[in-house]
């Protein structure tokens, strides 16, 4: 921008462009992935590390446990994961079969779980996943009791961080014959899933629904309840009341295959604040560590994982970052990004089905760009890196188990983060709002 030109703060050029696009087209924008706006996040926290009053563990030699058990409240067969980093629910339909297989391969190699999505369970995914969490969504696409029994855990999806209060969306260009068949829908239609479950409303009903799921699966499977970060204190409380073994909390930075941009950017609260509230709820109920808390939405690095765990999460879940490990937004096939009107690093065009790197597509030619074996290795490498970073930070704070990380290990760099995470502003003992 030229120095002598002054941009409108209320109407920056991006806003003017959007107003003019809306004026021309008369319809909202639909896109994939998560919020692009800056919100307070884990980057606004730092670890204090060891000092005179805290002994560090030797960084390379002393053990630091990363395993976690999920679902031991009621389920006969809880899941023991080797690392506290899971793969979030992403549908076959939104992602291609190769991408789903790669996620399963990578997660299995690391002894962790992956998750189905709005569209049912594919053989590729079940076959490649050591631990597979089967989602029960409002649409119930592809839901059947045989797959329910094949799953290692069941996740009742109430909401999603990218769009709490909204249902799934998969535009017609991604509804090919196989996807349509699995969802019992005509090919090529714009599939807009229901936002509410068809056979229960509210936590009292959900408690009964969970009882039914347990009866069908012989009380073996852990039952997760996934909520978008809307009112996390109350949602977590009600999920515990409804009988959840595990609460999955998805913050507003969480991604989606497709939804309205206005929904992604303006509904739900950031993961940082949501996590604190959920932990408060569990502690108030004396259920912290008894009902496990899995947090997702904007987890990118081992530092994010460690900070989430220090704030009280038992595990985290990654979706968008896992897609990026598969090559989403990689600097490849640049001409195809240009055809979509975008470029690597900026692409959010999952909804078009024209994913240049073959991750979020049902086009056979594009899908061939993703080799599930090689991509599975990248997922494994990425999960390994996150785990090593997590252990490094845990040891630096004197912890022999990553779940021993605690809020006292953290300081905030901004007043907003201090208030949301309820840890002191760095260099002070001040926690905004705490008396």
């Amino acid at each position, binding site marked *: 921008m030229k120095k002598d030109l002054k941009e409108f703060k209320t109407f920056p050029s991006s806003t003017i462009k959007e107003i003019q696009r809306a004026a021309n*087209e*008369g*319809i909202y924008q639909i896109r994939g992935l998560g919020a692009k706006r800056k919100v307070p996040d884990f980057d606004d926290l730092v670890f204090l590390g060891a000092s005179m009053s805290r002994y560090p563990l030797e960084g390379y030699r002393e053990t630091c446990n990363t395993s976690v058990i999920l679902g031991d409240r009621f389920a006969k067969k809880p899941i023991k994961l080797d690392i506290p980093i899971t793969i979030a629910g992403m549908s076959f339909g939104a992602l291609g079969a190769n991408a789903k297989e790669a996620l399963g391969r990578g997660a299995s190699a690391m002894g962790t779980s992956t998750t189905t999505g709005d569209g049912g369970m594919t053989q590729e995914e079940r076959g490649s996943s050591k631990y597979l969490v089967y989602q029960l969504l409002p*649409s*119930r696409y592809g*839901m*059947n*009791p045989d797959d*329910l029994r094949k799953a290692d855990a069941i996740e009742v999806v109430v909401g999603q961080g990218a769009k709490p209060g909204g249902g799934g969306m998969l535009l*017609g260009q991604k509804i090919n014959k196989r996807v349509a068949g699995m969802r*019992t*829908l*005509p090919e*090529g*239609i*714009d599939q*807009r899933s*229901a936002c509410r479950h*068809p*056979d*229960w409303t509210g936590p009292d*009903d959900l408690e*009964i*629904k969970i*009882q*039914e799921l347990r*009866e*069908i*699966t*012989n*009380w073996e499977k852990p039952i997760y309840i996934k909520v978008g970060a809307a009112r996390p204190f109350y949602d977590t409380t009600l999920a515990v009341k409804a009988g959840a073994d595990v609460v999955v909390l998805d913050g507003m930075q969480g991604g989606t295959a497709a939804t309205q941009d206005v929904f992604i950017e303006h509904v739900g609260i950031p993961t940082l604040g949501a996590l604190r509230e959920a932990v408060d709820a569990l502690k108030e109920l004396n259920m912290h560590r008894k009902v496990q808390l899995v947090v997702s939405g904007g987890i990118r690095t081992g530092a994010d994982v460690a900070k989430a765990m220090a704030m009280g999460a038992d595990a985290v879940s990654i979706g968008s970052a896992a897609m990026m490990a598969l090559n989403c937004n990689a600097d490849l096939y640049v001409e195809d990004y240009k055809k979509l009107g975008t470029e690597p690093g900026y692409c959010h065009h999952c909804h078009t089905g024209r994913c240049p790197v073959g991750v979020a597509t049902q086009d056979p030619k594009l899908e061939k760009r993703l080799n599930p074996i090689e991509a599975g290795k990248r997922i494994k490498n990425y999960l390994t890196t996150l785990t090593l970073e997590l252990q490094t930070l845990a040891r630096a704070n004197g912890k022999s188990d990553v779940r021993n990380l605690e809020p006292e290990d953290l300081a905030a760099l901004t007043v907003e983060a201090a208030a949301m995470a309820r840890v002191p502003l760095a260099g002070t003992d001040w926690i905004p709002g705490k008396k």
Partner: protein
Amino acid sequence: MNFDLNKKTLREVNQHLQNVDRKKNTRKFEILNPQGQHAICAGLKDDIDVTVKGHTGYYCAGMNQKATVTVHGNVGTGVAENMMSGKIVVKGNASQSAGATGHGGALIIEGDASSRCGISMKGIDIVVKGSVGHMSAFMAQKGNLVVMGDADADLGDSIYEAKIFVKGKVKSLGADCVEKKMDKKNIGELTKLFKKLNISEDPKKFKRYGSARNLYNFKIDNVGAY
């Protein structure tokens, strides 16, 4: 073989019915004193015949496969939800979401069914001998909903490829649901269904409703339909 839910737990009864010993060749079961318990006969997966003597709570015969379950009473929310196959007969009335998301098999309700009967149905055949509540067959994808009485407001809202047949009055149709011609093919299909389910009815007395397919792909011109 009888099970008395005053004497056995629901888990014990369901576990037995879900794991029938084929060598014993016992195929008929009776459940006494259900007392409105939830999830009775949920997750059955074998070709057995269960009679429930009394009222049941939510999700009776949920996700049923192959079994025939007859309830001599009323049923709560979500009877036969997500049923895959088999047959469920309700001698009384059914609460909300009867047959929700069902993929196959047949659900016969001899009384009335409350709202959202057949919501998101995916291939099941539902026959209601009485009337159905509002928003029945909402987002119904496949299968048949047959109503011998009346249908309340917003029948078939956002319906996909499921077919609705109503003998009585329809208060109103939901978004994208329209009355369709009841031609020979449809009469034949309904005749076949009645014959299969041993129901004495004249298919010619029914009107057919289904999707206008105008909302299958989002068009700004249709925005007023929502």
